[in-house]
């Protein structure tokens, strides 16, 4: 049992372990309507991070005493398969999964027109098949597409990405190893049309200036994600549906 040595994450040329520059996103693949039985679904792959999302509803809230008279309730579960991580994840929900379910739900609530479906429920399930950093943001990206695919009315889509700080540099889209050995990880969910933040967490240490630069870098990444989301919807539904 020896203390793990932190690897060098960015070389002298500013190149990251996987060959990216600090502001590069990993290869991104987005698809909608990937699961047959749900009302809406999406798949997001960001490097080795692989996430499904599915939506059921609007449907009758159940049990009934949880129903809200003037709008729908939104349920959300972020869950990881046991083999998605380096160490096997225990079965059942960890505290981390419960917290992330909450922040993803709150982000989605910010854009869904819940008032249109009083006394109803909308269920959102995010399933992380492989976790290599950025699973909550990939999950939120997928979940907002699954809602769109289910025809749930929304103010706009949500695009999400993480920024981080490793070896003193602010980077876009940290991988698992960069998250683990880096100095900070900051996942951000954005409603791009209104230019507002719907999910924001920070775990690590940044100066105020680094924090500002992190926010700016996130906006760059968000634009790329948002573009890919729109393309995925266009492939499925044609040009018109990108105006959700």
């Amino acid at each position: 049992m020896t203390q793990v040595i932190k690897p060098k994450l960015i070389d002298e040329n500013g190149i990251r372990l996987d060959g990216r520059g600090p502001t590069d996103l990993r290869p991104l693949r987005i698809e909608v309507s990937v699961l047959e039985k749900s009302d809406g679904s999406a798949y997001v792959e960001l490097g080795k991070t692989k996430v499904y999302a599915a939506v059921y509803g609007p449907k009758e809230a159940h049990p009934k005493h949880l129903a809200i008279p003037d709008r729908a309730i939104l349920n959300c579960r972020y869950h990881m398969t046991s083999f998605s991580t380096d160490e096997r994840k225990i079965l059942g929900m960890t505290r981390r999964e419960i917290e992330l379910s909450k922040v993803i739900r709150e982000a989605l609530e910010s854009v869904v027109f819940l008032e249109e479906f009083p006394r109803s429920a909308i269920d959102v399930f995010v399933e992380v098949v492989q976790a290599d950093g950025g699973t909550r943001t990939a999950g939120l990206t997928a979940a907002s597409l699954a809602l769109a695919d289910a025809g749930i009315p929304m103010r706009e889509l949500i695009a999400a990405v993480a920024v981080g700080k490793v070896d003193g540099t602010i980077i876009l889209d940290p991988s698992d190893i960069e998250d683990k050995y880096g100095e900070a990880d900051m996942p951000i969910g954005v409603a791009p049309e209104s230019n507002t933040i719907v999910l924001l967490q920070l775990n690590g240490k940044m100066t105020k200036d680094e924090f500002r630069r992190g926010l700016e870098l996130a906006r760059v990444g968000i634009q790329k994600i948002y573009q890919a989301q729109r393309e995925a919807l266009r492939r499925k539904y044609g040009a018109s549906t990108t105006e959700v």
Partner: protein
Amino acid sequence: MSFLPLKERSFTIKIMSEKIYKLLQQGKRIDERSPYEFRKITMQTNVVEKANGSALVSVGSTRILTGIKVELGTPYSDRPNEGVFSVNAELLPLASKSFEPGPPDERGIELARVVDRCIREGKAIDLEKLCIIPGKMVYVLYIDIYVLDYDGNYFDPSVMSAMAALATCTIPKYSATGERVEGENIKVPIRDVPLSATLGIIRDRLLVDPCLVEEESLDTSIVVCLDSASNVVAIQKNSPGHIPFSLMESIINVAEEQISKIRAQFKEVVGIG
């Protein structure tokens, strides 16, 4: 406590059941298949790099992901020379409106236990080769099955995906003294590939691989698992209802025929079978 799940009202089921039965009498199915015809099967292995083994298998729209994580552990005290495996199955709420979040219910537990029996009784794995130090250190295989999309019959693709994940599973090599042999890996030693076929029964008629609409309308159904020599290694009547004794012979024969077709495809994709 086991309880009856809420289904459609009986009369709508009865109408659909009648329709399916009439089609079967004409050798037809509601989705254009013939009675003894599986939906399209696809198999992909190594789909999750962080797992030691993994496979994604579809039968029609039903989609199953199995991943295997290998750890080191101690053997059971009455089997000191054998590695250990355990099977878990989760019917993800992603996959169907009838699946709830939470710990596996009786359906998930039944699925896991039936797959476990197929592997165990079908002697699929040479467990003695997964022993590192007798009585002290063995490989422990966690075989975890996730139903991602559910359009009927999760048993057969689950057995396929578990076997495909096992057959392609790579594990770090350890020496007989329990040291990691750096850079070297071994494969899970496969002795046999048990595979299953699920049959639906309506009155005196059989069909294979029921889709969801059929599943809800069947009188009953049965899962039959055979090894490569066509020995019966597991059976599970997995829903309420009667099977006439007189149908059992056909059931076994139809299962054998179907499994041999699946086995050919499995061999082609996975390399063994």
